[in-house]
């Protein structure tokens, strides 16, 4: 028995390498043939080989049941030369922010970066230029509109009809054609005094002649009050004083009349 065991052990030891090579499928063709031949003639080796096979199956079962389903743990390396840690789970799909990606994109193409910068600057300059131009246009338009409004008190006002103040030897009577009955004729006799004649146009386009602005013209106020539009025209027009004599009374009166015209509105 002991000799058999010794022989068994010796043969097993002799075939130890062949046994494991054959068991794990790494024996070459010659080794396979030799070992298979030996197994047929050696019951001990056959039994041992069978036992090894069972153990290997158990270990494989242990690995399959408890290890294969495990995920590889995340390995974190504290690098000394970089910020933070290396993580094997996140390095492949690195969480670089959109900003990093954008920066990398622009850093790879300097020509594109330069042209894009130039285009941005040109666009900004263009916007500023057009903005200034638009604001200037608006100012001019606003000014023109303002003037038009002021002079458009009557639809038929034109240069010829603009009332002018001139000192003439105007007739005593002045005729104002009625306009919707809103006008009143005023005339004052004052032959001794020079009168200021004002020509105005009413809203229907009729020329109202000879508003005789004399010293005694308390009724001008009434006339003026009767036709606001005439007065509106009148007040908007800057009176031209031609050959104004330096007469204190007359200048004062004119001032009074102008003031009254403004008040009536």
């Amino acid at each position: 028995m002991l000799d058999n065991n010794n022989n068994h052990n010796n043969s097993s030891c002799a075939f130890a390498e062949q046994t494991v090579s054959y068991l794990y499928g790494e024996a070459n063709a010659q080794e396979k043939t030799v070992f298979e031949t030996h197994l047929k003639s050696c019951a001990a080796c056959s039994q041992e080989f069978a036992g090894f096979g069972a153990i290997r199956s158990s270990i494989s079962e242990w690995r399959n049941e408890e290890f294969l389903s495990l995920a590889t743990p995340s390995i974190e390396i504290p690098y000394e030369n970089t910020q933070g840690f290396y993580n094997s789970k996140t390095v492949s799909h690195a969480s670089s922010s959109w900003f990093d990606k954008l920066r990398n994109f622009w850093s790879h193409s300097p020509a594109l970066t330069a042209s894009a910068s130039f285009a941005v600057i040109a666009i900004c300059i263009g916007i500023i230029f057009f903005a200034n131009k638009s604001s200037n246009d608006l100012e001019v338009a606003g000014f023109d509109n303002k003037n038009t409004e002021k002079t458009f008190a009557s639809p038929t006002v034109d240069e010829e009809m603009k009332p002018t103040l001139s000192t003439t030897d105007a007739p005593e009577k002045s005729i104002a054609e009625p306009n919707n009955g809103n006008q009143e004729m005023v005339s004052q006799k004052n032959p001794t005094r020079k009168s200021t004649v004002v020509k105005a146009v009413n809203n229907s386009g009729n020329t109202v002649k000879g508003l005789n602005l004399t010293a005694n013209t308390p009724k001008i106020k009434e006339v003026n009050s009767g036709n606001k539009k005439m007065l509106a025209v009148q007040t908007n027009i800057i009176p031209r004083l031609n050959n104004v004599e330096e007469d204190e009374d007359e200048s004062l009166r004119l001032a009074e009349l102008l003031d009254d015209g403004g008040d009536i509105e």
Partner: protein
Amino acid sequence: MATDLTDEQLVEQAVNENSEAFGEIVKRWERKIFALCFGMLGREDEAGDAAQETFISAYKSLKNFRGDAKVSSWLHRIAVNQCLTVKRRAKTRSESFLDDENNQEEKVFVAPSRLSPARTTEQNERLKIVRQAVNSLPVDLRQVVVMKEFEEMTFQEISDTLDLPLSTIKSRLYTALKQLRMKLERMPLEVV
């Protein structure tokens, strides 16, 4: 690209503070090292810790790495040492997996009829027995078994990794299988 370089070239770049190169090494070996640690320790949490410590230790000792050894040998050596450290630490804390397994051995094998009739329980018990048997092997024998069964390396690869002759590797595996057979045959449960 880093993927086209050998392990030794990557280590050389990593020595020059190229973190990306070392990252490639980690990516190549993390699964195998984790498998080795799991086979050596038998527990997922301890295996994860040991794998993490392996790569950290490797990174710290990059400058001490000599080009005469293979990177795989270097990493496996560090991993086995880390497994021993973790196991020793667990023993010190009286939370040793192996000790627990040893204490429960008799309870498990008092009588088969006391075991749960459920197949999953039976399977779990069987797996626990195998795990315990492997853990009881000497470190050098256990490492060869784990590298063969868990890392699925060839004899030549194991020989290159451990820097040992091919015959030595085969002989160690034979001896390990023989001891496992003796341990398992003593147990009343069928192994397969």
